[in-house]
Structures are given as structure tokens and as C-alpha cells.
């Protein structure tokens, strides 16, 4: 799990382990560097996973606070990103189970709605909504596996580490998710 790439000239940046050491030693403000590094990526995963921007923001907030509280127990500080994602994945599972009971299916992405105001952006927004709609119809474990593989681009080994699932089970979930998405999106555009 790598941090969000930022603009600007190359600079020597503190490693995650260095920042964690500062935070654990009492420099609470240094934690904001980790939020800046991983916040957008976490927000993207949670948004795609939960299909609701507000719920995703809440899940990410909760994830970072939990990570802060457990920071001294982070065994491999240079792999903070993976560790954070394992917390986020669990948090999204809980939130997903809740929202699943409420049968939520559509993304409410404010950015997408603003973009939709421009007429030429409509097709793009509609396509994104179809994707979100199709994603929301996947089983949670399949959606999780698909996003980690094809959006977060983790290897199966990395996925196994952050989800706690076996590699063959993950491959099966990705395959089923892919087949399902192909079918749902085909239906949507042939309708």
C-alpha cells in the first residue's frame, strides 16, 4: 500500500515508521501527515465499497482514529498503509452490513453530482452511476475483493494479508465479481 502521490519536486520525505515513532512519542500533530498520505485512498475505497460518500467519510474518520489508538501495536510500521487498510476493510464490512439492511444501492457522490451540471459530462456521470449501481449489487465480499484487486491494485498476497481471506477464495471472489459486473453492465447498456 503506497501513499497518495502528491505534486511537487522530489524531496526527502519521512517514512511512515519515522512518523509513527514521532506520534507514539507524543507528537500528535505528526499524525496529520499520515492522514494526508492515505486519506484520499482510504476515502476512495470506502466510497466505492459503501456507495455513500457521507458514510464513507465517517468510516475513514473512524478508521484513522482507531489506527491512532492502536498505533503502538502496529507491528510493521513501514507497512502502515496495509495495516490501515485492514482496519478500514473491517470498518466498511460493519458499515456495509448495516447499510445492506437498509438496502442502499446508489452512490451519492457530491463531486459527481456537481460534475453532472455540465451537459457534456452527463454520459460520464451516468456511466459512473451504472458502475456504482452494479457494484452495489455484488455480494460484499466479492465487491471488496474486486476493489482491492482492480482499483487498489493489490497483489493476491497483499489482499490475503489485509482481508484475512485465503488466496484461492479471493481469486474466486474476484472472478465471480468480474462476471457479475460484466453481466450487470451489459444489461444496463443493452436495455
Amino acid at each position, binding site marked *: 500500500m503506497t501513499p497518495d502521490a502528491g505534486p511537487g519536486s522530489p524531496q526527502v520525505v519521512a517514512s511512515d515508521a519515522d512518523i509513527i515513532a514521532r506520534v507514539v512519542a*507524543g507528537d*500528535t*500533530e505528526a*499524525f*496529520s501527515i499520515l*492522514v*494526508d498520505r492515505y*486519506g*484520499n485512498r*482510504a*476515502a*476512495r475505497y470506502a*466510497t*466505492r465499497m459503501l456507495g455513500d460518500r457521507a458514510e*464513507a*467519510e465517517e468510516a*475513514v*474518520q473512524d478508521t*484513522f*482514529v482507531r489506527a*491512532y*489508538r492502536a498505533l503502538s501495536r502496529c507491528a510493521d510500521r513501514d507497512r502502515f498503509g496495509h495495516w490501515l487498510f485492514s482496519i478500514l476493510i473491517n470498518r466498511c464490512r460493519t458499515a456495509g452490513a448495516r447499510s445492506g439492511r437498509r438496502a442502499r444501492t446508489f452512490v451519492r*457522490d457530491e*463531486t459527481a453530482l456537481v460534475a453532472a451540471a455540465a451537459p457534456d459530462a452527463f454520459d460520464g456521470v451516468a*456511466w*459512473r452511476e451504472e*458502475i456504482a449501481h452494479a*457494484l452495489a449489487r455484488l455480494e460484499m465480499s466479492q465487491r471488496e475483493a474486486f*476493489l482491492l484487486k*482492480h*482499483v487498489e*491494485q493489490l497483489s493476491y498476497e497483499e489482499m490475503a494479508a489485509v482481508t484475512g481471506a485465503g488466496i484461492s477464495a479471493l481469486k474466486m471472489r474476484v472472478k465471480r465479481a*468480474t462476471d457479475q*459486473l*460484466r453481466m450487470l*453492465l451489459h444489461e444496463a447498456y443493452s436495455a
Partner: protein
Amino acid sequence: MPEWVDVLGEDLRAPVELSSLTTARIMAAIRADRARRLRRTRTWQVLVAAAVVVLAVGLAVRTRQADGTAVQFVLPVPAAHEVVVVGDFNHWDTRATPLRRTPSGTWQTTVRLKPGAHVYSFVVDGNRWVPDPAAPLAPGSDFGAPNSLVTVAPGTT
């Protein structure tokens, strides 16, 4: 030609920016968490420090009580070869508390006694029981000879 799933993945990789409000909330939550932890730590530190003081004072008092008060026994018998003091504080053991002879011929030793009344006697040259000429006699007489009495008041050192 990329597979459709790659195109889909690329679409879904479109950036999602964490709102600045959420970032601010995260930092506010962890600042509050840290302040809470510090308060808890300080409370524990104060409690532990107080417990240490109470234990230390208790230990000092107990040690002082266990050590007792230093009482000097003196017997002026320059011609003696050996003098010991026996009493309830050493279970009347004639080997437990020998006295030392000073150059002036006086025999003396110091024993720490707990508060209360103690009955004792000197034994000169192994068989002669001699009461302390400087102390009152104890009521009754153990071992067939008059004994002396020393009283240690509580709180003296």
C-alpha cells in the same frame, strides 16, 4: 487493447478526496484522545506516588518499631572475665548478648528493645547472676535470683 475490466478499474480509480472537514475531525478526535490519555496517566502517576509515600511511611514506622529503642546495659565489674546480659528480649540465652570490657573495667553493650517492660539480669563468669545496680528490681524473681526491670516508652529511639 485493454480488457474491459481494466477500463472499469481505471474508472473506479478516479480520485476521491477526503474532505477537509473529515481531516479536521480526525485530528480533533485524536487530540482529545491524547488529552484524555494524559489526564489518565497523570491521575495514575499521582495515585502511584501517593501509594509509594504511604508505603514508605508505613515501612519506616514498622522498621522503627521492629528495630526498637537502643538501651545500653552497663555493669562495673573490673575483675570479671566474662559478662552477659539475659532477659525476656533474648529468651534468657546466655550466649546471645555478651558485654564488652572497656579500658576502665566497665562491661557494656547496647540492645534494641521494643516498647514495654523487660526483665533482665547480668550473668558474670558463667554462673553468677547479678541484678543491674542502676535499675529497679523486677517484681518476683525468675531463676532463683532477683532480676532488674527496664521500661521502654513507645515512640523513643
